[in-house]
Structures are given as C-alpha cells and as structure tokens.
C-alpha cells in the first residue's frame, strides 16, 4: 500500500492538510489519522500497517483493524492511497 503520486501537503497548526490534485479536495489529518498517513510509506501492506499502529498506540490489533480499514477506504476513495 502506498500513497498516490498526485497530492500536495502542508502543515498548519499541527494539522497536516493534504490535497488531491485531480479533484482539488483536501483533507485535514491530525492525531492517529496523521500517524497512519505517515506510516503509509510504501513498505507496509494493511496487516503490517495495523500492527505498526497498534504498537505505537499500544492498542490490540483486533480493536484497531476496523477503524484503519475504514480510514484507508476513505483515503482510497479520495485517490490518496493505492494498492493493498
């Protein structure tokens, strides 16, 4: 799983604001959403991502997986993330 090529991002007030260049839509990411976005670096598949986030936040993987699934689905729908 990796970030798509066509986006720009900036940091404002501790939030990372990401804009998808094709649509012009932009999204504000902070807290755990920002951590997940930063962990989508092309080196992890979804199970690895869940494991990494669970380790960082010390939460059970089973508890996190549905939320991460939903968030990644949102990122894919926004064309910010591709691959599995």
């Amino acid at each position: 799983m990796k970030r798509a090529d066509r986006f720009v991002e900036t940091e404002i007030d501790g939030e990372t604001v990401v804009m998808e260049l094709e649509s012009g839509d932009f999204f504000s990411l902070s807290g755990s959403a920002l951590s997940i976005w930063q962990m989508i670096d092309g080196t992890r598949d979804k199970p690895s991502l869940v494991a990494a986030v669970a380790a960082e936040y010390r939460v059970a993987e089973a508890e996190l997986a549905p939320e991460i699934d939903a968030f990644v689905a949102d990122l894919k729908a926004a064309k910010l993330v591709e691959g599995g």
Partner: protein
Amino acid sequence: MVAGSPITLLQRETAVRYGTVPDALGAISVGPEQYALVGDEFLMRTKDGLAFHYRKGQGVTVELGAQADPADEGLYLNGSVYAAAASINGFYPLHASAIAIGGQVVAFTGPAGAGKSTLIAELGRRGYPMVCDDTLILSTPAAGPIRALPGHKRLKLTASAFELTGAAQQERVAQTIEKHYAIPAAGTITHILPLTALFLLAEGRQAAVEPVRGGACLRALQDDHYTQGLFLAANRPDRAERFAQLARLAGAIRIYRFVRPHDARTFSANIDLLEEHLHEFEGADAAPAKTRETSL
C-alpha cells in the same frame, strides 16, 4: 526591495491617461459589461460606455462614453482596474477591510453586506486607524511576513452605518449607489505594515470570537470575490500552486471567526468583545504571526 516600492509601483502602474481603448484583447472582443484579462493586459467596458485598458508598464487608459457618470470612473478605477493591475503585478487582493494596531494590520473579511466597512468605521471611532476598505492588497514574498499595502479606496458607508458609528459623512458615492464617503475617525495608514491576523465576519445569535485552525484556514481563504477571480486569471496557478499560495497565507497569519448578530442594539457590545481580542495585537512587534514550515 525597499519598503515603499510596492506603493510606488502600483501608483505608477495605475496612473491614468485618457484616450481610445481597444475593442478587444487579441481575439477576445470586450463589449458592454464585459472584461478580459489576458497576460499582462486588462480590458473592461461598462454598460454606460466607460472603458478601461491596462497594460503592464504602460498604466491605465480611460475612454469616457457620453453616458458615463464621472463618479463611476473612480469607482471602477479603484475597483476592478486596480485589482487587475495589482494582480498582474503579482500582488494578492483580499476582499477585506483592515485596521492598524501595534504596528501590524488586522483585517476583516466577509461577503458584501457582512459589515466590513461599518466595523472599520466603529474601530476608527475607538482609535484604530484604517488601513483599507473593501480590498486589501497584499505582498506575499516567498518567505517572511505577508505585507499589507495601504488602501487605495475611501471608506464608504450606508446610512445605517453612519447612524451606528457616528462617522463624519461626506459626499454621496454615486447616483446609483446609496452610500456616502466617510472620514475614518482615527485617520488612514499610508505605509506598508505586516499582516498579522484575519477575522472572518459571520452572523450568529451569540457574539463570539473563535480561532480557526488547520485545514479550516485554507477553506476560509478561498474567497469568491471578483478580485480573486482577477488574481487567478492573471497568475493562472495550477492546483498545487494555488494550494501553496493559500498555505503560505494561512501559515503566516492568525485566523479567527467573529460571529455576532446583526442587531443595532448589541452592536457596541459586540465590538467590545472583538476589541478584547484585538488587545493581544497591541504590543508593537510583539505578537508574532504564526511561525511554521510548510512541506510543499
């Protein structure tokens, strides 16, 4: 660049001469109530036969039609023509009125009728000099503070705004406009100052000042005023460049939302609340704008 040079540049670029104005810019013909901005040129015609042509480096040519109201000439020159010339020269026009406080500029934006001019008149009565009314021209260098150029328009108020603020009334703006010019009670700034904050004016039942943060700042800066259209036409930024422009602005200033009811009975109390927040900008050179890096 020396501090005064953008002012001098815009004075030179908007210098007026009278003559014949072309019918078209290249292949684009411009009829009554139309305008075109192509490259370094701007051409506009009003329905009453006024025409304006600006070309970078050559100033503004005005053609007066027989039906034209002389008062309209100045309104257009200070409105669309000035904003087009500023945009073509790389300045950023913001639909805002502004005051100076503590050696910095605090601006107020909102759609027509939001109360920008009334607020400036009232803040003038409370001792804050006006920087501009309706259009704030910004210099946005790649780094360092955003700089606000002194205003080029006179303060214009409705009858109800004169009643609310007690401002000194001058002549009527134009036959077709039910506003009069007003004298800002605390004077007008004539030099460049850094822009430190922008307040978004909104109507609501309860008066409040709330900070706007993060991505909401970018949304707030997406202005649909005609001056932004001129800026985008002149500079044609792609989406990434536009995002970077907004991020640059959002990254350099603090943004707030000032919500209050449009009610004459609470007007003074609402401005009292705003003024409490303005006090934080009073220490000259003390209230730094945001400092942060962008990752663009």
